[in-house]
């Protein structure tokens, strides 16, 4: 996830925007011709990492044919506008979600959700943000073009991960969000909360893979609740099972297995080590 501390793209329109589109296309072509080596077009490097998911609460329903993943995401960031990239099936639908779906489960489990983590109290004040302007990237070219056009930038290791997802037949969904009160100096840390859901056909439960480190939070507080129509012994790849039973969710009865803990991220780096940048 990259941040856009000072989003110029919101202030450009008309012929200036058309010119920016032309330049972005040129840079994209140049980068592709150079085997996607960022040194060939240093404009592509993100200027600084500015946002990470710091906590997440997921409720997943699975009926044997369709999986719906409801997410409450708490992001830690510095800036005014941000974009969130994630991969998913080309058959996935992006849905809106009511915040109360998490409470509907938690009240039956006897849990306060993320508030059960003492660390969550430090993630305040929490600004509610809406995810807007969703778009889908199908090729590496699309990802680079958008990132150059809107000057959000990319990091090479994250870009390689995107490339692997695209070669696997997944698409990349891009979502924007902006806090109503941005960082005072562009660097002040903020906590933002967003809700979203994605639904896709599948005959097996698909867990979300570990995200890449975005520069702000090396780990996430994580609750993942699996709701299935039939009993299951499925376990989360790395979270501990903390509860199981039955719940009613959206007027339907489900078997419930809840997993919780601190989940790691890939590609973390040591304290003080800078993000990827142009090399010689």
């Amino acid at each position, binding site marked *: 996830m990259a941040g856009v501390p000072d989003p110029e793209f919101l202030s450009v329109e008309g012929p200036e925007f058309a010119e920016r589109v032309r330049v972005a296309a040129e840079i994209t072509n140049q980068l592709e011709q150079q085997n996607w080596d960022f*040194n060939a077009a240093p404009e592509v490097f993100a200027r600084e990492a500015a946002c990470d998911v710091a906590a997440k609460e997921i409720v997943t329903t699975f009926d044997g044919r369709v999986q719906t993943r409801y997410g409450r995401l708490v992001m830690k960031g510095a800036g005014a506008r941000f974009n969130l990239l994630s991969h998913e099936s080309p058959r996935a639908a992006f849905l809106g979600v009511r915040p109360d779906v998490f409470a509907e489960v938690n009240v039956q489990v*006897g849990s306060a*959700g993320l508030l059960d*983590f003492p660390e969550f109290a430090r993630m305040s004040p929490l600004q509610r943000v809406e995810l807007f302007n969703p778009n889908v990237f199908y090729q590496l070219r699309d990802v680079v073009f958008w990132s150059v056009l809107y000057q959000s930038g990319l990091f090479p*290791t994250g870009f390689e991960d995107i490339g692997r997802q695209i070669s*696997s037949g997944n698409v990349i969904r891009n979502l924007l969000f902006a806090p109503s009160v941005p960082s005072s100096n562009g660097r002040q840390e903020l906590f933002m909360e967003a809700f979203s859901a994605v639904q896709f056909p599948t005959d097996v439960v*698909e867990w979300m*893979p570990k995200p890449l480190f975005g520069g702000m939070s*090396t780990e996430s507080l994580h609750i993942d609740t699996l709701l299935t129509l039939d009993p299951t012994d499925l376990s989360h790849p790395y979270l501990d099972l903390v509860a199981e039973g039955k719940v009613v969710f959206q007027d339907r009865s489900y078997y419930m297995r809840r997993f919780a803990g601190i989940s790691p991220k890939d590609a973390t780096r*040591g304290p003080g080590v800078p993000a990827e940048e142009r090399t010689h």
Partner: protein
Amino acid sequence: MPRVDPGFRRKNGRIDMGASDYVTVSNPYSFDLRVRGRVPTDLCGFLVVPTNRRNKDRRYFARWHDSQTDLVRLDLTPGRPGRVQANVLEVDPAATDLGERIGDGRFDPQAQLLSAGGTYITQPNHGANIAGDTLWATNLLFGAPLEVDITRWKPVRVLSYLDITPWTPRISGTSHFAWSFDHRYAYFHLSHLEPGGHGHPVRAVDLTLYELDVSTGTERSWRLVPPPEDDVPEVANFHSCFYFEEGGRPFVGMLRTGALLETIAPHDAHVDHTVAPASASAIWIVELDRSRPSLQARLLPGVMELDSLALSHLDVDRSRRDGFVLFANFKEADVGEETHGRNIYGEEPEAVAEHYSGMIVEALNYGLVIRYEWRQGVADLRTFRRPYDPGRTSLGHSWLPINIQLGPDGKRLFCSFSGFRPRLLPHHIAVAYPDRVVDHTTIRSVPPLLMRMDAETLKPDVQGGRGHLSYAEPMAMVVTGTAAQSYVCTFSPESGLRIYDADNLGKLLCHAESPQLMHWKDTHFRPDPAHLAFVPR
């Protein structure tokens, strides 16, 4: 942790994955993976994967060597999408399920287990050696090979040629066997390990080279006499071997990895301690002579002089049947140490969420791939060694090389590199290698990599575009098919099975995955398996 209503059944009691606590009978089970794409017609057969399993709770420490083995057999049925079925064989490390089936009176699992301090006889969580319908699965370093009938997916016997005693409570052996030209004979070494302690490292004694006749199941052995200039029993361990002939005479080459162990048992307390640094790896060459009870080893010239650590994996081109071209890799890691304690940034393990529940191997610096051609006593050595350059990712890197395999055409070399996770490198290991360790103030995470190279030049096999590499790939890898059409398969429990066109590593043909691969009850497979073998049907 979230509160749990008393009305909900709380999971209580944890499974300690220390092997000494694990004794059960072999218990295979099966399930289908979800397949997207197609399973190519040429890939009708089995993929065999030895895995490591540990507790999810990273407070429960277990060494990599000791982690519970499950052998996974993926049955591939070609088609669009085709079918991939997983069959998981939970190995009994105590081999109690084999006791009555050994039948030769030599092997008493209970007595051996007692001599081993109640730990394990076999824990084959690493190498997969295959001939016909038989698998010999091996550990990284410890324990005897386990022979498995692939079709029935049942263990058959433990190759327990050396008895375990209270004075030599562990066996060390070759993970990756050498094979004769006709694939009838397998060659590997076994030795006893004497416990270290009180400032004295573990020592390998009774070094023995075995020749296993896979058609009869019988074996022959020779005592090995170390080269005089490399007679250091503390580092005499051999991860891989290869067979070759020269002038019609048979030889076995043995990659002396050089893992240095302070003690056989895991550390009692996982605190920083002084690490005795490992020394440069080497290759021993022995000529097979059936008229002799022992064989004198000599050093292959020019290898120890490379001054690199942890020579581990290989492939060999013996097509000329006189001499060889060896492709091998050095991990540049201290493979005998346990990853625990503070990291190089001074962070405690509890503060590093990506920590495993126990040991893995993390490199000190980027590794080395060599191409060593040996003809009539003349050597030609080429090398590939490269850091990760985020600005030029198309060049690849050589951080922690794992698999190395020639393509069926013999012209292309496929390698997997595990990359680097700087926050997993322990401080106490790094300080033992001040001249080798990377600058921790500038190094970032290095992603895993699958790369195709030119086997002649060891340069990345760039043919336009990015078809010569794929980042963030699982480490377990195998190349199969024909010179005209070959495939690269990669696998990890979380990423699933991925099948690529070997000509274009950006062209995924098949992806098969299942959530049932991502855990076993409430434990999981960590670290990802290193190796994968294809068995055609």
